[in-house]
């Protein structure tokens, strides 16, 4: 079984953490309670789930310029995820993550579905453009 995912672009140091795999896209403004780190948008596929200290896999990025400051804000409040792994992302997510010092990657092959599931322990290596499922 394949245990690695190649990513197209990456920023940040190597980190390990518990995977949180979403089928729905993400915005820290539209979806997230920025005081608890819990996804609160009604109807979001991860409604009620915390992103704190997780390696978050999101297929897409949604809307929102305000995400740039939001990442810095959640990092300061110690409710940031370990890393963001996006299928398709936008500049705001990247600008925000780099400003906050949160590792981020974009573009994946193969699709994480079938390789990683929520609860797996993964290592994100943005420098080598690779994500490994450790257990």
């Amino acid at each position, binding site marked *: 079984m394949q245990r690695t995912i190649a990513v197209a672009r990456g920023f940040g140091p190597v980190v390990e953490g518990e995977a949180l795999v979403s089928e729905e*896209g993400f915005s820290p403004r*539209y979806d*997230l309670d920025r005081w608890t780190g819990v996804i609160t948008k009604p109807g979001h596929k991860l409604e009620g789930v915390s992103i704190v200290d997780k390696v978050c896999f999101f297929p897409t990025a949604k809307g929102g310029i305000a995400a740039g400051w939001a990442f810095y804000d959640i990092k300061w409040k110690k409710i940031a995820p370990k890393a963001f792994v996006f299928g398709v*992302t936008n*500049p705001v997510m990247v600008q925000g993550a780099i400003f906050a010092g949160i590792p981020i990657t974009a573009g994946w092959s193969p699709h994480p579905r079938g390789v990683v599931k929520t609860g797996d322990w993964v290592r994100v290596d943005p420098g080598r453009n690779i994500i490994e499922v450790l257990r």
Partner: protein
Amino acid sequence: MELSAEERAILAGSRGEPARRALEYQVEVGRFWGAKRLVPVTNVHMMGDIEVMGDAGLAYLQGEVKSAARCVVSTTTNARCVDFAHCDRLGQDPGEVAKERELIQCLRRMDVVTTDTCINYQTVYQPHLGEHVAWGDTGTVIYANSVFGARSNFESGPAALAAALTGRTPEYGFHLDEHRRGSFTVELKVRLDDLADWGAVGKLVGEAHQDYFAVPVFHGYHRTPTADELKHLGAALASYGSMGMFHFVGVTPEAPSVAAVFQGREPAERIAISDRDIDRVYGSYNLGDGDARLVVFSGPQQSLLEMKRLAALFQGRKVKSGSSCFVTTNGAVLAQSRALGYASALEDAGVTILEGVCFYILQNLSPMRQANRWTNMVSSSAKIVNIIGAHRFNTILRRTADCVEIACSGRLR
């Protein structure tokens, strides 16, 4: 990245620590996207208020001011989270309001022009074809790229601030010709009589193609759209689809024909939107418990012509007792609306006009929702219907006249 002698000097500290740090950050962002260089920008529009920045962001700005950070190009601000004339009545937190004042002072000390508007493209600065800018608020960016033919990526607060301090931005995304080609076509076989209908188009197209680099090409519409219509279309595309650009054949400057925007490529997809599709959007909303006590005209702020239309619709009517209706706009539009009598027509009807803010970023919005026991929010803006979700409103899109009717009757339809 290839850096000019001046840029290398900035990195060596020639313009001080804030500019050095800003450029270092921009190089890192540019590297991520594979940018080959930085391009000079003429104008920056940034989002910066206490609700989006939090204590961390305010502390960062205070540090910048202490280090004598200074904008080197004209820089304006987006809508903010406090209207100081209304903050007490809205139950906003006095501590946060004080921080907002401090934040504004920090920005002004850095020579930022605090315009507090998300419709800078209608009221402050209209870049020309090919002009590179660094704008924040997605609605402003998509308007700049599409309607003016200017060039900007979504520049979040920290990225726009960096551009203000260095006068440049990494050249990737919509600064490059290759990303400005059309991706797919959307035929508009549809009436679109109300601004909310244009937002509904943006929702349909954006939701189905969530990709910053997807550029829809609209064609086949039976008349010329207005600036406000393109504003609602763009704001919704950016909100639902995270899109930064569209073409409208025969309307936007880089789209003289369908062939011209695809430059020899085939559209990845061809879709059409009909009146039935728009009706389905309106029919798709869950009316929840039927609460009709909150109606909002915001996101983006209202233009003068939107204020005029609202004033006419509310003329001689009253917002139902127990209901709340909010309109947000910027200082310039409000001043003209006062002079022209639109503001008084709205206020006489019991509408609250908020200046310099957008409803969805209001400080303390979740507690405000709880205190008022609002469950639903009704709006003519497809964008705000999408983005206010984290505050746990059930949201409903309705046409402008229907929103007015709901506000005045207290009945949800």
